[in-house]
């Protein structure tokens, strides 16, 4: 029942990472250069991250500064992307939104990983009833898409960045649990793990020394792909009013406001739309590219 974009079967029997390069295998750097997804994806992702960092210390204007004398100004030398209905600088708001979106995305992905990965390892290691229980629980959580969780959280606590992060993180937990479990099962069935177990190595040590390093590429790829989903979810939930309330600068909010004024200035819709798409595209490509780099057997498929 896997809808995960990762081909889990590909990692079973994967060579141990600690072995380094096997003779005749092209290096990671070589594979990276020859994967268009990886190259384009890292360039876009790097640009997004740089913009987010820069916006913390500097934006062309204060993203919240209202200037009623210059509303709906088109793109010009002063305002590269123009101004919105309150005369706020669109570029500055987009930049500050990048920061907010990335922060929310990274926190929710890491939060989900912190719960999902141990849960998946546990399910793989234990098997039997406890393992099944974890899996059923993951299925149950999986039945609640991030949107529903956000709706419930917003009914309880009102919309906020925390609502969005909590909802997205919760929705990602079962994804991590499943990917980790399938990956770990593959590694646990390998001969050298059996050998280690026969030598009396403890369960936790096997997980830490053998399983985690081997599934790390898989998990990093998954994190990157989920980051793009998080960006998307963040924009959608904020647009629906379940996220941070105005006047903060976030992409979803900018779209919601721009839609109300699209008769006056349709360009206001275009900027955040393009930004969201570019950001999602970047992380998506990076995730695909990482998969190419980490798992060369999947190339050309």
């Amino acid at each position: 029942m896997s809808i995960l974009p990762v081909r889990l079967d590909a990692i079973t029997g994967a060579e141990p990472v600690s072995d380094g390069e096997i003779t005749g295998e092209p290096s990671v750097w070589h594979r990276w250069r020859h994967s268009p997804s990886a190259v384009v994806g890292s360039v876009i992702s790097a640009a997004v991250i740089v913009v987010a960092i820069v916006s913390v210390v500097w934006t062309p204007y204060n993203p919240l500064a209202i200037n009623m004398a210059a509303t709906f100004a088109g793109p010009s030398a002063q305002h590269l992307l123009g101004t919105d209905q309150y005369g706020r600088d669109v570029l500055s708001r987009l930049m500050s939104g990048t920061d907010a979106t990335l922060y929310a995305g990274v926190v929710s992905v890491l939060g989900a990983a912190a719960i999902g990965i141990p849960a998946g390892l546990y399910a793989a290691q234990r098997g039997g009833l406890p393992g099944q229980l974890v899996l059923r629980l993951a299925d149950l959580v999986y039945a609640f898409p991030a949107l529903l969780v956000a709706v419930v959280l917003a009914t309880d606590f009102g919309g906020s960045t925390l609502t969005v992060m909590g909802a997205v993180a919760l929705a990602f937990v079962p994804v991590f649990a499943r990917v980790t479990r399938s990956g770990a099962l593959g590694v646990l069935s390998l001969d050298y793990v059996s050998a280690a177990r026969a030598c009396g190595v403890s369960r936790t040590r096997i997980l830490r020394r053998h399983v985690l390093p081997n599934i790390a590429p898989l998990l990093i790829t998954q994190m990157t792909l989920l980051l793009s989903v998080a960006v998307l979810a963040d924009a959608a939930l904020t647009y629906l009013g379940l996220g941070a309330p105005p006047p903060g600068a976030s992409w979803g909010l900018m779209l919601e406001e721009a839609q109300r004024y699209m008769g006056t200035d349709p360009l206001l819709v275009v900027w955040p739309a393009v930004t969201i798409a570019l950001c999602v595209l970047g992380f998506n490509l990076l995730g695909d590219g990482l998969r190419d780099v980490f798992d060369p057997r999947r190339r050309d498929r």
Partner: protein
Amino acid sequence: MTLAAASVIVFVVLAILPGKPAEVILGTQATPSAVRALTDKLGLDKPIWRQYVDWVGGIVSGHLGTSYISGQPIASELGSALEVTGPLVGLGLLVGLVVAVPLGVFSAVRSRRASGVAASVLNQIGIAVPSFVLGILLIVVVGVELHLLPTGGFTGWSDPTGALRSLVLPAVALGVVEGAIVGRYVRTAVLDVLSSDYLRTARAKGLTPGRALVRHGLRNVAVPVLTVLGLELAGLVVGAVIIENVFTLPGMGTLLLQSVENRDLIVVEDIVLLVAAVVLVVNFAVDILYHSLDPRIARER
């Protein structure tokens, strides 16, 4: 089983709300006695487990309860909302298929040529643009600039042409994005089939590439694609919630967010459970379908 657990979670999480529904309904001016009378009338003074039993009993026997706000039976409100959401999801699925199959097959068959790469790039961009962003862009271009189709509202099915016309743009916005996601799976599946031995045999006995693919390949492609499509159905239902808000369609999603705003708990509970149930049932059906379509999987386990 999972569904029962889901209903408990939905209920408990929503029942421990900070705001008391009666106070929200009556506003800040309400006298304490009026609040008490309404709480009594809504049955909110009963213990939580009793409220839960009443609610679930009602759902099982087809009585979804009465909206706290409008006083209307929820079943009829939900019914008229589903008249919009149902066709929207159906049309979205149709658009998704129309996008996914040709796009995926084309980019796989031409994967080593410029046109195939271009199709893949287009596909990636399609995945990166969230459906609600595409919806807003469609409103701007088709609705505001070209005045071709209605951009919001719904006339009702008494005027079938008008109703269909107002569903066209939302369905396209919903379907294109889901179609792009499924298209990637179609591409992978077709590439798998193209490199298979039986297709080479088919070519060797003199079939043209096109005929070989149609007669021997597509049936094998259908297995993974059908399952992904089933899972995407859940995505479509969630996507419809967002899209309805973009196009102000009086469907389930609009009802859900309105109820969140009004603290109309029982409506939120019903809709959240309904969507979760749809996701669970679809996942289950896909699991069964997967096994019956591809006997190899049953044998592997």
